[in-house]
């Protein structure tokens, strides 16, 4: 890392996140002045143009890649058109201990005087909550599910290679061509399409204006700069910003900058989940890098410097502030840009190149919170690449995560995508599978499986609130067999998925009609050709995911019920349900029996793993294939982010011996402490899940650092990964840190400010995490070698 990068990195690391009301003010003023003048898409595009014309610019000392969403690094705008924060929300952000954002009374005043009076009742969130049925609201409050789109726009959006071959002027020409071909005689949607296309064209102008303003600023700064080297750099920045994004990039520098402008454009237009993502960055940059090397206009060192500048830019952009349940399901500054390295080309060849290794070096050296990086390992990926990744994993940053490229491709082909599009796809956010640059794959929220079992064991009632949330499916003591119990669970599951989907459909329609994203639509393939928005079936593929949480915990609970109540009769149902409702008070022997004498998921025991499969099949049958609002389908996803901690707080004691309020299992990992036979057994249990039928699974493994000492252990770790992938595993990630270190970090957070640990599909600073989440990470079984 050279001095420039070290300074930029330090600034990014040290700067504390703060809120800016600038965007809120700009959009409010524009909407107030222009209310009713334009169609919804054109209004959105013009508002975006207004922001790009007037927002404060930032070009920092040392920077080579330029542009910030806020007025300065780590300053985050708000999106009142989606979620209009209350004065209390703004104060809470400043007061809360973890995931803190600086706000002040001046901002509260701006909100109370300008923003709230206009957006209260008009924001998507207000309109959604005014509509949702009371039963949905009760189930939401009880923690049966969460709703992703109540504070942030649907997103999980990743770009493909097209943006490096076209400038926005090329896109504008394409839009104009489609506009001219609209057939008002034969196509009843022609007028609607015209509005969409006009909005897309305007949004291109907005992004070009934004870049031109940076060029102007850089020129002005160059004139005033006394240091000749910096003056030359500023002049170069100006040249780059004059060329991209209006035109296609000509070299590595411009390729990086065009991505960054597109990134900023989409995350300024809306606050879609998981920010934006360049996807297969190594594949996209490789031709530019090779040409620059060949023409001697760039060397490896200079390329690395530019890439490092980009890396730090991601870290300058914390997630927009979340509140309430959304803050709990995703309690982190991380905004989940997750860069894919390796994988396969569109033609199916190994895509690892020199720049893949260069990017791994950047990942290792910069190791900030953001961006996340992962390696996509196919059967064709060389071991050298996998081992290089393992050597970084050993350092304990929690990344790169490792994905099975072959599985990720199979999942997409199963869901109906072409093999080429599937290869250009990959994983984003945490572990979500999608066809990059061609798909809207929208997460809709988490589903709490242990909670649904709890409601089943209470005849459809929520024991915490006493409210009826599900249909009466019978008292558990009346079930004559395990199958009767299971049938009741299936009934409750169907009921809650129905309820969730009903509201999802409504929200997705709201976004399509009232909050289109014209700039994003330009960049995602087929939106222009179809004349439809990203949120309205514009993309080539349209997937809706429901993320199922706690399969480990619910499997273990069913296993305990099956064994102790229905097979050995060692415990009666009456005895068990009483113990559960008393949180095992005076029943420690019973609890330990459930903990220790139950076949549990993650041990390669068929009794437990067969139950897991049965539950997984139920989830698949209940969710997969339901039509969404965009001509696409619902699919199953198995990630949890930090929601397993929140969900745990909403579930009483469970039949696996878990105390009330404790976290449920994360992703598709075994429940805490349930796996006792080491990682090969865990991976084999996971291998019995037909992961190809999902849109992603997540397996966390914690290793003690001594297990990974030496080169031989790297080879063995790589073998473990390869074998898991032979079993069809989608993803595996490692925390390499021992418990004493984590305990020390809890006691002396100031000394461990840079300790990154793996949480779900992302890493976070351990000392920034809530106490409950810290405990959860510590509770995860640490794999030792024997």
């Amino acid at each position: 890392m050279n001095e420039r990068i070290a300074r930029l990195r330090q600034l990014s690391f040290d700067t504390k996140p703060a809120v800016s009301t600038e965007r809120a003010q700009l959009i409010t003023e524009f909407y107030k002045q222009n209310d009713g003048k334009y169609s919804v898409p054109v209004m959105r595009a013009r508002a975006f143009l207004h922001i790009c014309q007037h927002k404060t610019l930032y070009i920092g000392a040392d920077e080579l890649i330029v542009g910030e969403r806020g007025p300065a690094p780590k300053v985050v705008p708000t999106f009142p058109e989606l979620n209009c924060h209350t004065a209390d929300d703004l104060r809470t952000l400043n007061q809360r201990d973890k995931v803190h954002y600086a706000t002040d009374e001046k901002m509260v005043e701006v909100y109370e005087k300008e923003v709230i009076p206009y957006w209260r009742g008009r924001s998507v969130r207000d309109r959604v909550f005014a509509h949702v049925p009371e039963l949905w609201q009760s189930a939401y409050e009880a923690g049966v599910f969460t709703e992703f789109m109540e504070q942030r726009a649907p997103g999980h959006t990743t770009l493909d290679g097209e943006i490096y071959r076209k400038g926005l002027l090329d896109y504008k020409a394409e839009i104009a061509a489609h506009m001219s071909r609209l057939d008002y005689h034969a196509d009843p949607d022609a007028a609607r399409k015209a509005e969409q296309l006009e909005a897309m064209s305007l949004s291109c102008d907005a992004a070009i204006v934004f870049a031109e303003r940076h060029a102007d600023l850089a020129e002005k700064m160059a004139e005033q700069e006394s240091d000749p080297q910096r003056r030359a750099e500023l002049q170069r920045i100006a040249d780059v910003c004059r060329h991209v994004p209006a035109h296609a990039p000509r070299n590595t520098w411009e390729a990086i900058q065009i991505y960054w402008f597109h990134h900023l454009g989409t995350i300024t237009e809306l606050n879609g989940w998981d920010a934006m993502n360049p996807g297969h960055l190594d594949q996209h940059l490789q031709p530019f890098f090779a040409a620059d090397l060949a023409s001697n206009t760039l060397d490896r060192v200079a390329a690395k410097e530019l890439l490092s500048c980009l890396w730090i830019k991601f870290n300058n952009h914390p997630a927009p502030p979340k509140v309430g349940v959304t803050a709990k399901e995703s309690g982190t500054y991380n905004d989940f840009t997750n860069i894919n390295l390796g994988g396969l080309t569109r033609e199916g060849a190994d895509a690892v190149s020199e720049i893949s290794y260069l990017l791994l070096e950047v990942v290792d050296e910069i190791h900030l919170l953001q961006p996340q990086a992962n390696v996509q390992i196919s059967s064709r990926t060389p071991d050298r690449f996998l081992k290089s990744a393992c050597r970084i994993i050993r350092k304990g940053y929690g990344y790169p995560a490792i994905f099975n490229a072959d599985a990720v491709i199979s999942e997409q082909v199963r869901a109906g995508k072409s093999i080429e599009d599937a290869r250009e796809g990959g994983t984003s956010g945490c572990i979500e599978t999608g066809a990059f640059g061609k798909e809207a794959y929208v997460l809709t929220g988490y589903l709490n499986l242990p909670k649904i079992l709890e409601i089943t064991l209470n005849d459809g009632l929520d024991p915490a609130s006493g409210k009826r949330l599900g249909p009466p499916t019978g008292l558990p003591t009346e079930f004559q067999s395990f199958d009767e119990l299971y049938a009741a669970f299936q009934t409750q599951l169907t009921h809650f998925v129905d309820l969730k989907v009903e509201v999802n459909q409504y929200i997705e329609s709201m976004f399509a009609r009232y909050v289109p994203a014209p700039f994003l639509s330009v960049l995602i393939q087929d939106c222009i050709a179809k004349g439809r928005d990203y949120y309205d079936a514009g993309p080539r593929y349209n997937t809706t995911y429901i993320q199922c949480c706690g399969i480990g915990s619910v499997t273990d609970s069913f296993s305990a019920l099956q064994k102790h109540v229905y097979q050995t009769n060692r415990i009666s149902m009456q005895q068990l349900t009483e113990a559960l409702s008393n949180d095992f008070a005076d029943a420690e022997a019973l609890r330990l029996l459930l903990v220790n004498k139950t076949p549990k998921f993650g041990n390669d025991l068929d009794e437990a793993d067969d139950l897991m499969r049965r539950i997984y099949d139920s989830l698949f049958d209940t969710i997969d294939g339901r039509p969404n609002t965009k001509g696409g389908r619902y699919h199953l996803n198995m990630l949890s982010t930090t929601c397993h901690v929140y969900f745990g707080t909403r579930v009483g004691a469970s039949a696996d011996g878990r105390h009330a309020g404790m976290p449920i299992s994360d992703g598709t990992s075994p429940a805490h402490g349930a796996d006792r036979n080491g990682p090969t057994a865990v991976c084999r249990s996971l291998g019995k899940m037909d992961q190809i039928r999902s849109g992603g699974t997540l397996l966390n493994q914690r290793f003690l650092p001594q297990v990974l000492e030496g080169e031989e252990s790297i080879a063995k770790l790589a073998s473990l990964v390869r074998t898991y992938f032979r079993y069809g595993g989608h993803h595996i990630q490692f925390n390499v840190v021992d418990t004493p270190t984590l305990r020390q970090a809890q006691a002396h957070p100031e000394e461990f400010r840079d300790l990154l640990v793996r949480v779900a599909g992302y890493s976070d600073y351990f000392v920034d995490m809530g106490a409950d989440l810290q405990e959860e990470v510590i509770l995860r079984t640490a794999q030792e070698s024997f």
Partner: protein
Amino acid sequence: MEIAMSKAMSNGRIFDVKRYSLHDGPGIRTTVFLQGCPLSCWWCHNPESQSVAPTIQYHRESCLGCEACVEACESNALTLTERGIQRDEQLCRTCGECTVACPAEARDLIGRQVSVNDVLQQVEKDRLYYDESGGGVTFSGGEPLAQPEFLIALLCACGERDLHRVVDTSGLAATQTLLKVAKHTDLFYFDLKLMDDHRHRQTTGVSNQRILENLRALNAEKQTVRIRVPVIPGINDHIENFSDMAEFLAPLKQIRQVDLLPYHPSAREKHRKFGMAWKLNGASELAAERMEEFAAAIRRPELRVEIGG
């Protein structure tokens, strides 16, 4: 075929099967621990494996006093007292029912009778990991050579299934037995502790003469052998031991690698639990420079010496 059948049905006593073992041979392995050992080393890491007969281990700190074990015991061998559960060794048949009943995992049955097929079923589970990593199966103990028929049956069965086989041994067995085992072994991990026989007898309970002879015999048979030396403070951590070892190993041309294993005091707790005397009082971990000196004393151009492993 009949021989294969009888081998597959042969039984033996093991005390554990550990999957994902990384330090008992090449690649990812499953280690099968056979019960019973003719040595009684002061520093033994698996003291529970020394006895040939099964035993019941009791962890008083985990015991809830719920008496589930007392109820489960058909021999009436258990009673709850102020000092936890007491077991009448005369009455106890070590059937293990109490360990099944105990919810708190306060009771373990150490040592169980299993068939070759039982073991193979466990071992086969991680086959893909072996394929991918160049791993396989390690037979350790206890002393695997203490159950020679069972061991040979296991080794043959693994050989038929194309599994790589390591035998991790103290080297104490009839030479003929060892050579029979060697026919079905791909790699030996062979413990060498002390060159001074008097001290060897004192701290392990047996002479080292047969062990040294056996090592020569394996060498003569051109077996692949990796030497493992646990370096125990106050027992064998003096330079003479290693220079003697170097002299002994010099003519043994088949031996290409020696691992020096730094002592780890974790075995102490186990000895306490089993009511066994712990004679290494005050022993602490050895300095890395000391280990390096010992390694240098043995190292030759054609003999690799590593610390750890």
